[in-house]
């Protein structure tokens, strides 16, 4: 299931205790800084075998919005 793989990526970057919900956002979620952001993008790309465009990387921004961006690349949750 894609959602399980998606969540696993977030947990790998932000820790098993990360509360993945609509409030999990850049700058608000503990540890979601610019470096973590890029590590997350790299892990998502490697996991789902996709390559995000610069604009989508820039606006990834949150756990929920990320699902919509992933959909653009054919990854349905």
């Amino acid at each position, binding site marked *: 299931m894609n959602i399980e793989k998606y969540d696993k990526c977030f947990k790998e970057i932000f820790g098993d205790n990360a509360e993945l919900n609509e409030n999990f956002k*850049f*700058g*608000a979620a*503990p*540890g*979601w*800084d*610019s*470096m*973590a*952001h*890029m*590590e997350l*993008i*790299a892990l998502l790309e490697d996991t789902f075998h996709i*390559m*995000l*465009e*610069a604009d989508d*990387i*820039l606006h990834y921004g949150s756990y929920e919005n990320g699902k919509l961006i992933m959909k653009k690349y054919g990854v349905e949750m």
Partner: protein
Amino acid sequence: MAVYSKVLTGKTIRMRAMEESDAEVTFKMRNDPERTRFLNPPPESVEAQRIYIAKQRESVDGYYFIIEDLEGNPIGMKALSDYCPEMKTVESGRFIGFGSQIQHIEALIMGFDFAFDVLGVDKVLMTVIENNKAMYSLQQRLGAKETKRVFMPAFGCDSIHSELNRNDYLEARKKAENIIERFSGRK
């Protein structure tokens, strides 16, 4: 004068010394409510900002950079202040970024490289408002170690003081460099 005359060039950005002619663009940057909510209040006018830049250029212990993308568009500013050659320390000062995450990472890396390699410091000192979680997290991720917390009445929370030494930085820098390498050419 604490003005570094060379242009620092990275894979996604350039950094050059701030000039008085940058007053208007930096005034706009400093008045962006979202990007500056954890920083001290800005000057009241473009002219006040120009005077501020002129003063900083004449200071002996501060370095103020404009961050540009590789096309020369200004996308932020970065300061290094309170440089002390005797103590071999410098404070990682104000950072305001309007670029991508990669450009922001590279701007911080280039600022630290400047501190360690050009100024020759042993430690970079840094302070961040507790509520600025992203910057605090990034500082720690780049190897900084927290030293103390001081309550800031103006912000209603603590300021967190940290130190970064060269060895810790160089270790953390490798990961940042790999990320910049991977994503720098992304369109």
